[in-house]
């Protein structure tokens, strides 16, 4: 008896009986832990020009994951030594809010994971942005992760795309990104953090117009034969997401055009009125 109680009080048990062991990614009704069907995405919301002080900014949320991206530039480079004579330099800085995940975590800017993450976003956008138009200048992208529930990379890429669009930086195409996972033989899209920690998952970023893939990132073990299905599904999903992103951009542009015609309603005032 007393031994039982010892264990009840010990922190180990919480681990053993924690959500990991009981977690069922797909129930008998073919529904996921949050009630979605396998190929259903979480609610996608995007807003442009969230930070008027930046040249372009966007906030994107996939379910509970929320990421804000701010774009500065093209502008004169801070560090002249790094400028390139034939194209613009792209800098990416990522900061994850300490409260973003389940546990509070202070991450320093020099953290290797964050650096790697920033590097992969940088190299995703470098070939897509028409950097040759802005020789000897730099484009800074700051990404803030405010909420984290899986799909960090996809949300960051989507937010960056929209922020770049908002800043009016010429790009070859949208870059839209989506994660996919596999449970037994069922592929599912847009994973939450619980699903991410339990299932093999891949994040894919596509250029929807050409249907080509620019980023593939998988960090979990999966048999080669299973990979292809999941990978191609994520690509298809990315193309669908592009439609949503395009809609947001068009709506925003239409609203701006209306305001310019009206000539009076400034953006801030407009927003204030609706909020009150």
């Amino acid at each position, binding site marked *: *008896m*007393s031994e039982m*109680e*010892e264990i*009840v*009080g010990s922190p180990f048990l919480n681990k053993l009986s924690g959500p990991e062991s009981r977690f069922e990614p797909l129930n008998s009704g073919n529904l996921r832990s949050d009630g979605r069907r396998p190929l259903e995405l979480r609610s996608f919301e995007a807003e442009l020009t969230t*930070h*008027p*002080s*930046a040249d372009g900014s966007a906030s994107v949320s996939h379910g*509970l994951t929320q990421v*804000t991206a*701010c774009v*500065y530039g093209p502008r004169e480079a*801070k560090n002249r030594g790094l400028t390139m004579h034939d194209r613009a330099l792209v800098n990416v*800085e990522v*900061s994850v*809010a*300490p*409260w*973003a*995940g*389940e*546990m*509070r975590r*202070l991450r320093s*800017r020099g953290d290797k994971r964050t650096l790697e993450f920033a590097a992969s976003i940088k190299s995703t956008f470098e070939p897509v942005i028409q950097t040759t138009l802005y020789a000897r200048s730099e484009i*800074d992208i*700051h990404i*803030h992760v*405010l*909420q*984290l*529930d899986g799909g960090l990379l996809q949300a960051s890429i989507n937010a960056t795309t929209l922020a770049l669009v908002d800043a009016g930086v010429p790009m070859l195409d949208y870059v839209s990104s989506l994660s996919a996972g596999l449970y037994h033989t069922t592929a599912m899209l847009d994973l939450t953090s619980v699903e991410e920690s339990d299932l093999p998952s891949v994040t894919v970023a596509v250029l929807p117009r050409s249907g080509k893939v620019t980023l593939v990132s998988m960090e979990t073990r999966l048999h080669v034969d299973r990979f292809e299905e999941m990978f191609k599904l994520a690509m298809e999903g990315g193309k669908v997401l592009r439609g949503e992103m395009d809609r947001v951009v068009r709506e925003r542009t239409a609203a701006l055009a209306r305001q310019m015609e009206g000539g009076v309603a400034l953006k*801030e005032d407009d927003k*204030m009125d609706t*909020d*009150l």
Partner: protein
Amino acid sequence: MAYQLSKAESSYTASGLLLSQRLDGRSLLDYRPITVEAGVAPTANGSARARIGDTEVVVAVKLDVKKMGEDGEGGRCVCSVECSPSAYPQLDRDSLSDLSADLSTLLSTYLTPIVSTPELLIIPSQLYWQASVDALVLSSSGNVHDTLFAAVRAALWDLRVPRTRGVVYEVPGGGDDVAMGEDGGSSVEKAGVLDHMRGMKRGAVDFDLVDGADDGTPLEGRSDLPVCVTLNLLSPVFYLDATIPEELCAPTRLLLFIRPSGTLCGIHKLGEAELPPAELKEALQEGVRLGKELGGAMNARMGGMGGKRMGPFS
């Protein structure tokens, strides 16, 4: 700070201020529109986003269960402020982290006495909720301090402390383990149960989360949480809510922490200039009045509505 004002710009702004004329047409004691939105981070126990003009700060409060130290000390809060490089594009990495560290120190100095309330005790002298207050300065166009503390205040207002009850296990021979509990609405009751159990043999003391319709209890004294009012002193005038050029014109800046009930619970002086006491007196009186007003207005706004709350004050 690397941000510098040209002489002409500085004297233009300063002489305008001395004539009670500001660049954006406000009077000296006017705020820009203040917007406060609570509950912006669902994974935190309390969170808020505050904007004053274009300055924007997001704050989240998280509670973690911590064991108390030997000396019975507890209820300490942990604070961190991070300034985003997008808020201060002119600063390099090092000065940015210096600035973040300065703000963090300021925040924890003024917050520690406020947050160490008995409501955060789970089991007296054993376990407590450690509040971690994390702020992110997303953009700045002057008056970061007021915005930061407004966001912190709103996040603490939004904070819900999970309801707990003490659990006592009875050690061998006693048969089934006894789970004692009472709704932990107030910590006094909780303590009472445990004191009662102290006479008995017991093995481990733990706690249970109580399921309820809401996420927990709000802080009791939340309506009397202080607000920060920054007075920018440019002798003989002083002005509120300075923009960046206006901040650079003020030789002295006073941060006043004022409770809506009218008491002053902290003063912090920024700037190297010296300050004659006579000037301080007038500034203090006016500051306290303004702080009371601001705090009252925030309370009215935040209390009036549930969920998302926004409110411009003047």
